[in-house]
């Protein structure tokens, strides 16, 4: 049992650091965490996919190129209404239409619900301001995410009936912000 034999490989380090970024993003919603640099020059979505996906789970992605990269993780490609991980690089009208149909779990198994990975713009001063409260937030956090229309927040509010609901990671240029179902979001 020698530590010399236990190589902390780049792949291992990338997976761990990506997971830690996601874990802290959920632990402190609204605070941006940095994703690690991937040696494979992967985009943020692929990096997160490679950290979370394998043949035990499933995904949905409307972007064909990204879906092809995610398919290499071995996960099943399913419809948005059945997938455990839903990757939405752009929150356009078609993507918004999927939101009410993603898995929200059951009262017996609320963890059987979807996690959404959504592309946003954290450097958009003109984006509507969101005030977040809930677990992980000491008082409140103010957040502006470009590319996420107010309609999304309204759909989220209508869909989540705690403990049923879905959890969201917003990603933008190597950063991630968590928004679990427990976070109450008020669009100012």
């Amino acid at each position: 049992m020698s530590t010399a034999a236990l190589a902390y490989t780049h792949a291992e380090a990338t997976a761990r650091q990506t997971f830690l970024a996601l874990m802290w993003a959920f632990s402190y919603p609204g605070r941006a965490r940095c994703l690690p640099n991937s040696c494979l020059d992967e985009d943020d979505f692929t990096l997160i996919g490679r950290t979370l996906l394998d043949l035990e789970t499933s995904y949905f992605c409307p972007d064909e190129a990204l879906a092809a990269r995610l398919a290499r993780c071995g996960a099943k490609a399913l419809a948005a209404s059945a997938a455990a991980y839903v990757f939405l690089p752009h929150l356009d009208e078609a993507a918004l239409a999927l939101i009410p149909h993603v898995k929200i779990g059951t009262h017996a198994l609320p963890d059987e619900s979807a996690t959404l990975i959504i592309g946003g713009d954290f450097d958009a001063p003109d984006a509507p301001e969101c005030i977040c409260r809930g677990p992980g937030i000491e008082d409140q956090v103010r957040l502006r995410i470009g590319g996420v229309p107010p309609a999304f927040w309204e759909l989220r509010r209508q869909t989540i009936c705690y403990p049923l609901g879905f959890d969201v990671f917003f990603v933008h240029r190597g950063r991630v912000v968590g928004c679990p179902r427990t976070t109450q979001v008020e669009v100012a």
Partner: protein
Amino acid sequence: MPTIAELASPNPGYSYAFLDEFAKRELRRRILKAIAIPGYQVPYASRELPIARGWGTGGLQVTLSLVGPDDVVKVIDQGADDSVNAANLRRFVARMAGVATTTDALNATLIQSRHRIPEERLQEYQTLVLQVPDPEPLRSVEHDISKARLLHAEADYGLLWLRLYEQLVRYRRVTLGASYPCVVNGRYVMSPSPIPRWDVPKLHRAAHLTLLSAGREKRVYAVPPYTDVRPLEFADVPFRVEDQRGWTCRHTGLQHKFMSELPQPGGGTLYEISDTGFVEKVIARSRAAEVSIGATYYDDAGRFYIDGYLR
């Protein structure tokens, strides 16, 4: 004759931090869901480890799925860094992940604990991993776990309230000691693991992340930072922590920290603070060493740091 050390040659087949990539990925997915649904028990595929189930395998698997070379790990057992269980788990984690270890709660990035929360207030981005022998708070009132799951689903905790009431009627006080059931984020009742009642308030709106894992029962659950954790209590019979007023630590002379009782052969009892890492720092400071001691959850007068939480 060859020694055991010679026979047990280093095995290059071990993954970093012992768990294979597949196991880590599964547990990491479950941890994210546990944080998203505070207090809800998320099932996971608990793996075999080179220690027996019931000796901290749940906590150990969570620690191994988080740990990396940049971490500083502290492992405690009933507050002690030097007990057999803690020493062996710490050595295992250090060997398998090549991490630094410490006895100082404030220096640690990752604290694995059996049945105690340190006396010093943990900070943001610290992770406390609690080993859990029995994650089901309803087990004493509902032996069928499928039915217990249904009760959680319906947020039906009437049987637990009834149990507390029966204790009050029979003994004029709540006799629950460790594993005192608490409501997390106003929804799920969870077992905080067999920490003493003294430690239960420390989970309420804590700055750090707490992950609780039961290896034998294959369940992981979480208390995210700044989350409400309320022990079950009646409006007219408030929750009480252990009454240790007048107890003085034989090493430090301090009061109002959680103490272990040491019965003496000739009768009488001595007391010592259960958190040995904290005692170590207090003693070092008394010898004029430069030691940074953080704010504690209970002050020197025994007041909890959040006003009004303990009535």
